[in-house]
C-alpha cells in the first residue's frame, strides 16, 4: 500500500501527473489509477465540460456528471494556469516527484507554452512523458488537431467500416460507435507508460513516449496492409478494404445475419465450423449438395445458398441460434444492444459492469468495471472525482511551493 495515497495495487506508490484536454489522456490516467497509481490532474475550470460534453441531449447534466465520475474518479486535482508563474512552479514541483506524465494537449499549444513533451522530458530526465496526439510528435503532423472521428479517417479504419458496400457513393466510410479511437489511445498510452517503467528500471532514465492515434489505428489494419504488401487478391479479405461489392452482403465465412428478433453474427472460417452450423440448423438437405462442400465453392454459389440460410434464420431467435450453434462449437453470437448486453447471463455472472452513483447516490448507472483481473493486485475502483483544484493548496504545502 502507498502510505501517501492509501492505494493498493500493482502501481501503488507510482505517481502520475495527468495534463489532459480530452478523453485519451483521461482514460490513460483512469487505467493507471485503477492499477493503484496516485494520479494528479493538472486542469483549469471548464476543461471537463469541454472534454466530456454530451451535447444538448436528454439528461445532459447527469450524463456529464457520469462521464466525469467514470474518467476522473479517484484522482486528485490541481488547478493549473500555464500562463501563471506560481501555477507552473507547482506543476514543475509535481513533475519533479512524479514517475509518469500523461498529456494529450494539442501540441501546438504545448509548444507555444514551452511545455512540449520534449521540453518537459529534458527538464525532468527521470520522468516518463507519454504524449498522445493525432499524428505524433514529428514535424509533419505535429500541428494536427485530434478528434475521435479524424483518427478513424487518417488511421485507415474508417475506410473498411462498413466493408463490402453495394454503392460507395451512398455509403460513406464510418467511424465506429462511441469514442473508440480516444479509448484505444488511452489504453495504448497507459501500456506505454508501463513499458516506460520497465525501461527506466533498466536504464535509470526517463523517456518521451509518442502515442499517435493514426499509428494506433494503422496498427489495427495490419491484415489489410499485409494484403497489399504480399500481393494477395483482396477477394478473400474478410475486412474488405476495397469497399466495393456487387451485392454488399455477408459471405459464407462470416457475417451479421437477420433473424426473427434482430441479428446474429457468425464466423465459420474452418470447414468444421460450417458443418457445425449446418448441424445446428438441423442438417438441412440443401446443405448436402456436393457443390456446397468446399468453402470457396460456397462463396461462388452463395446466391443459391442464401435463401435457404436466411430463411431458416428468420424463423429463429438470436438466442436460439446462439446457443444451438455454440453447442456445435461454432462462433455465433447475438447482436445485442447495450441494454441486452447488461441482461446477458454471462455478463451478469461475470459482474463486469458495475454501478456508478449519480446525484448523491439516488441514481445508479452501469458502466464498465475492472479492465483486467489481477489475482494478487485487484483493480482499485473509484467513481469519486475531485473538484477542480481541490488539492492545490495541500500539494503546494507538501511540495513547499509558494502561491
Amino acid at each position: 500500500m502507498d502510505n501517501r495515497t492509501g492505494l493498493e495495487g500493482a502501481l501503488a506508490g507510482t505517481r502520475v501527473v495527468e495534463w489532459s484536454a480530452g478523453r485519451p489522456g483521461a482514460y490513460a490516467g483512469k487505467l493507471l489509477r485503477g492499477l493503484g497509481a496516485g494520479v494528479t490532474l493538472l486542469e483549469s475550470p471548464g476543461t471537463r465540460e469541454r472534454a466530456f460534453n454530451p451535447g444538448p441531449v436528454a439528461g445532459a447534466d447527469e450524463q456529464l456528471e457520469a462521464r466525469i465520475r467514470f474518467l476522473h474518479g479517484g484522482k486528485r486535482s490541481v488547478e493549473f494556469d500555464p500562463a501563471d508563474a506560481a501555477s507552473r512552479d507547482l506543476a514543475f514541483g509535481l513533475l519533479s516527484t512524479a514517475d509518469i506524465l500523461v498529456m494529450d494537449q494539442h501540441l501546438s499549444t504545448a509548444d507555444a507554452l514551452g511545455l512540449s513533451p520534449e521540453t518537459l522530458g529534458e527538464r525532468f530526465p527521470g520522468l516518463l512523458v507519454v504524449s498522445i496526439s493525432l499524428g505524433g510528435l514529428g514535424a509533419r503532423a505535429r500541428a494536427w488537431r485530434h478528434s475521435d472521428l479524424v483518427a478513424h479517417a487518417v488511421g485507415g479504419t474508417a475506410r473498411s467500416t462498413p466493408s463490402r458496400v453495394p454503392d460507395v457513393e451512398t455509403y460513406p466510410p464510418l467511424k465506429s460507435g462511441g469514442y473508440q479511437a480516444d479509448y484505444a489511445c488511452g489504453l495504448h498510452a497507459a501500456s506505454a507508460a508501463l513499458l516506460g517503467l520497465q525501461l527506466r528500471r533498466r536504464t535509470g532514465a526517463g523517456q518521451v513516449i509518442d502515442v499517435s492515434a493514426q499509428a494506433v489505428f494503422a496498427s489495427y489494419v495490419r491484415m489489410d496492409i499485409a494484403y497489399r504488401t504480399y500481393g494477395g487478391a483482396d477477394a478473400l479479405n474478410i475486412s474488405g478494404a476495397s469497399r466495393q461489392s456487387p451485392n454488399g452482403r455477408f459471405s459464407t465465412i462470416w457475417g451479421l445475419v437477420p433473424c426473427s428478433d434482430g441479428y446474429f453474427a457468425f464466423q465459420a472460417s474452418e470447414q468444421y465450423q460450417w458443418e457445425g452450423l449446418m448441424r445446428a440448423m438441423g442438417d438441412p438437405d440443401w446443405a448436402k449438395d456436393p457443390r456446397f462442400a468446399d468453402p470457396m465453392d460456397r462463396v461462388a454459389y452463395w446466391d443459391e445458398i442464401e435463401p435457404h440460410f436466411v430463411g431458416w434464420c428468420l424463423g429463429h431467435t438470436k438466442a436460439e441460434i446462439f446457443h444451438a450453434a455454440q453447442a456445435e462449437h461454432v462462433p455465433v453470437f447475438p447482436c445485442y444492444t447495450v441494454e441486452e448486453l447488461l441482461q446477458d447471463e454471462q455478463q451478469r455472472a461475470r459482474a463486469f459492469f458495475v454501478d456508478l452513483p449519480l446525484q448523491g447516490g439516488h441514481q445508479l448507472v452501469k458502466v464498465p468495471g475492472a479492465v483486467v483481473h489481477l489475482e494478487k493486485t485487484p483493480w482499485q475502483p473509484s467513481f469519486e472525482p475531485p473538484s477542480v483544484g481541490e488539492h492545490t493548496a495541500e500539494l503546494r504545502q507538501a511540495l513547499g511551493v509558494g502561491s
Partner: protein
Amino acid sequence: MTLPLEGIRVADFSWVIAGPFATQALALMGAEVIKIESSVHTDINRRLPPGADGVLGTERSGLWHGLNLNKKSVTLNLRKPEAQALAREIVARCDVAIENFSYGQLEKFNLGYDELKKVKPDLVFVTSSGLGRTGPYRGYVTFGPPLTAYTGLASITGQDGGTPERWVGGLWSDHQAALTSFFGLLAALEHRDRTGEGQMVEYSMAEAIAGQLPEALIEYGVTGTVPGPRGNRDPAMCPHGVFRAAGGDTWVAIAVQNDEDWERLKRVMGEPGPFADASLDTVEGRLARRPEIEAAVESWTRRYPPEEVASRLQEAGVSAGAVVTIEDLIEDPVLRDRGFFLTQDHPEVGQRTLAGLGWDMPAMRGLPVRHAPLLGEHSWEIFVEWLGMDPERFGELVASDVIV
C-alpha cells in the same frame, strides 16, 4: 540501445490474432518470446491469406508474419505427456506465460496456471478467452469479429438511424484484446519486479471491447433510451462527418468540436452564405439545422481533393483528415517518418513490409526486426542448446512425434 523488456522471457501458447499481437509487441520491445506451436494443429493464421504473391503455405501468410515478428518457434504436440513436460521446462525458465485458447484447453494439456506455477512460482500468467474463465457461457468459442455484435459495439456503429454494422474496421476485437493482454501483463510484471510475486491476469475479449462503451451505457442508464447507430454524427458537435471530396469514392472527415472551430471553418470556406446566420454560432443552433449545414459543407468539400480540404482546415486549427485507403496509408509520409512500418527479410518470401506499433520512443531507434519464425525453426536451439537436451533424445522425440 536498451529496449524496455530486455531480459524478459515469454512462453507463448497464444494463437490466431489477439494473443500473437500482444506477444509480438513484447518481442519487438526486447522480450525473448518462445512460441510453442505444432504442425499437428497449426495456428490457423499460418494457413490464412494473404499468401505471398497469392500462394498460400505454412510460411507465406502475411497476416501470420505481421503478428509474429521477432519470436522464436518450437513445435510440440501438446497432446503427448512428454511434450507437456517439455513445455513446463520452458515455462520454468520464463517470466511470463500467455494463452488465449478457448476456456479449459490449456488445462487439458496439464498446462493450466495451477500446474505452471508449481514449476515457476513467480510466473506472470496471462489468460483470455472470448467470454472469460467464469460464468455459464465460459466454454463458448469465438473469433474476434462476432464479438463486436455481442458487446453492443455493432449496435451503435452504422449509418445514422440505420442497422447495426456488420464489420468494424481493423479486426477490432482482436486488437483491443491484444492491448488489454499487454496492459495487464505489464502491470503484473511491474508488481513482480517490485515484490517477487507472480500472479494470474485474466479478462475476456468481450470485456475488452465493451469496456470502451461507457458513453452508450451512461446514455442508456440516464435516459432509458437504447442508443443506436449515429453514423459519423456526434450529439455534441456539428458539423461532424465524412464528406465527399473531388473524385470518385474520396472523402474527408471534419470535426467541428466547438464554436471556435465553427468560426475557423467559416473562414476557411470563405463563403459565409447560409452560415452567416448568427443562430448557427452555437452548437444548439447548428444541430437544429444539421442536414442543411452538412449539405453546404459537402458542396464545398466536393470541389477539392480530400488532402487539400484537410490541410487547409488543419492549418486553421480544425480537426480534419482525408479518409485514407490502405494504399495511401502505406505511402503516408507521417507514418514513414516515424518508422511505423517494419520490414522483415524472410527466408521464403523475401523482404516484406508490415505494420508496426502505435507508440514510438527514442529507445526504439534502429529497432531490430527479425523475420517471423519458420515452424519449429528454433526447436534445436531451445531444446538442445538452451534446455540441455541430449541430441540423441531430441532425435527420438522428433521421431516419436513429440517435437513435431
